């Protein structure tokens, strides 16, 4: 059972990283323009 002492914190840390990533993305405005990104990919960056 001793493994729990470090396994649980590691598991929590991983989950916490995901949570922080989500909050960062939200605050950074990654979810602000949900329509634009979908269309933007259809256009080439450089003219050809």
């Amino acid at each position, binding site marked *: 059972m001793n493994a729990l*002492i470090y396994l649980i914190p590691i*598991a*929590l840390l991983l989950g916490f990283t995901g*949570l922080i990533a989500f909050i960062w993305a*939200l*605050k950074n405005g990654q979810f*602000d323009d949900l329509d*634009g990104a979908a269309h933007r990919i259809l*256009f080439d960056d450089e003219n050809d």
Partner: protein
Amino acid sequence: MANTCLHCQSPIPPTQTKFCCNGCAAAYSLIHNMGLSSYYTHRTLSEKETPLIPEEYHLTGIDQYITTNEKDISTLHLMVSGLHCAACVWLIETVLNKQNGITHARMNMTTRRLTISWNATQTTAQKLIEPIFKLGYRLLPYDPTLLNDQTHQEEKRLLIALAIAGFAAANVMLLSVGLWAGGKSLPTSTLSLLQYFSALIVLPATIWAGRPFFISAITALKYKRLNMDVPISLAVIITLALSLYDMVTATGETYFESTAMLLFFLLIGRYLDMRVRNKAQHAAEQLASLQAKVATRIQADGSFAIVPLNQLNVGDVLFIAKGESIPADGRITQGTTVLDSSILTGESLPQTAQVGSTIYAGCLNLENPIHIEVTHIGDNTNLAQITKLVEQATSTKNTYTILADKVAQLYAPIVHILALATFLLWWLYLSASFHTAVLYATSVLIITCPCALALAVPAVQVVVVSRLLRLGILIKSGSALERLKETTAFVFDKTGTLTTGKFTIISGGTPQQRKLAAQLAKHSQHPLAQAVAKLYPDTKPLEKVTEITGQGLTAIIDGKTIKLGNASFCEAPQKPTLKNGETDIWLKVGDDTPILFTCADTLRPDAEKLIHQLKQQNYPVYLLSGDTEQTVQYIANKVNISEYYATRTPQQKYDFLKKLEQNGHRILMCGDGINDAPSLACAHISLTLSSSSQIAQTQADIILQQEHLLDILIALNLAQKAHKTAYINIALSFAYNAITIPLAMAGFITPLWAAVFMSLSSLTVTLNALRLSRI
């Protein structure tokens, strides 16, 4: 499409070959020279949205919106109008990015806002945005800090709280599985370890994610009221305190997972509720922002500048292009034109206006560019008077208590009494220990906790509102659905609501004559001429046509003078006897007798069916209009409405609705004009079409984007279904409570099982609500 402009696809005047105007030619060559011609293949134009025709503009006063940091990088935020598809976004960004000195250009397609940054030492804002103007888009700077983004921020905060609560709930549940599975067989040290880790997760999560509930509970208590957040907060705090005590003293089970799950489920309900309110609101605001809130001012040096409406002064001279709406009350100083004031007054026929005529904000300029001098601004304008009436209507309107709140108001005190009774009963009467008594009381609090109740109504609303949104019906608030269901009477406006507000030819002329008239009519924006032109939409316009404002059009073919216009212009023998609601337009070829065409405002194709179906469902239907008696009578007879009222002012319309309301009716008002705004504001539920005036869209609870009147029935039907489902949901969550509360009071249910039941009931109501997305 040979006869349309290569850039904007509007008809080409006969003097040109490829473009309708120099502006379009410039925009086209600009796009080509930058190697961006693929714009034309990528763009999608709908009939309603033609690209704006470029004109020479420049912005004044943008300097105050520019912020420059210490590295000489300047930033400017702009709102863009004239955007119609993703290709525009790409075009704007690419054009900007090709310029020297630009460091960043990003356009948000959802909000139609553009952010640009550039190196202040290399270029200026004017230089950068000039090509965008040339492409025909209009830009307006804004201050992002002043923008009303409060709801947006709130939604973000709630989503973060939801994420934290979800994280906590998921992880604590994992640890709890260990606790439950191992139970008493686990060594005490492991047990404590799992408990301490749970506390470590739940404690900060509760403090963060529980804030919305705590704050709301404290506010309610301050006003000596009870709301559902009070028992929720109590349950959360007591379970947490009890678990912490048990953990530290190692005396019993902990219930951290109950706290986390409770918060998570409640936050889901709250988030859904907020989404309903904001989603449609955003869409409505976007519609409004498309209509330019700017005017073109003629500067002292004769140049044009775009200025926001609130910066106009009395005495300013404004330029109003053909097709533009009048931004302020004023007097014409140059030019003669025809004004369409149907949106303002409900009159269907446009009026001629010349130098010296007084004109009101909201009218549409149909024929020639004019200059006006602003005579009234702010509170003195005609529009502001109507706005005042709107405010009055809004303030006297009874506040509507939504279903969920009604239930909660009754429910909250019961929850507290039951919990307190359980505690007292066990502690004093059945002489249980203080600890056990608190435990049982907490179980009651959690069991009765209105998770399912909190989800019951919002879940239904989210499903229905998003479904209606997909159908092009915008519902601006969740309560609008409930109010829609309660409607007992329908009141309609005429021009632009039951009718399209556009004329069509109903009789007159041989096909040959009609074709000739159409060829001539193509040159005018006048509604009657447009009606004639629609007879032969593909025909080639005549050359060398002169328009005589307020009279008609004339051209010479094979030495013969051809005229299309009003009776006196075409030297008509006598005024014909016209049926009500009809108007005459004449065609005269050479010296022949003039030919009469009659036209009338067209009824929307589904208006008759709508009224018929409403009458079948036994709803009283009224028609209120600002137009003349004859026209209103004509339309009323056509759609079979017996109770109609003509020449009503906004005040009279408003009074009529008030009177109906006093007679116990719950009114659905459907209108589109500025003159309808006060009635829209005071009606129990109001509905408008997307072509309506901005003020009507702000006031209306529901906006029909497709302009299909039958959508009203769809919305009504779904609102009734939503109401039924919401009731079933509330009944379901009460049923869960009815079974579990006695068990909890008897002490059979630990907080753990309470949490399980709570999740089950939440799941049931959510699934029940989801049924509505399919029927």
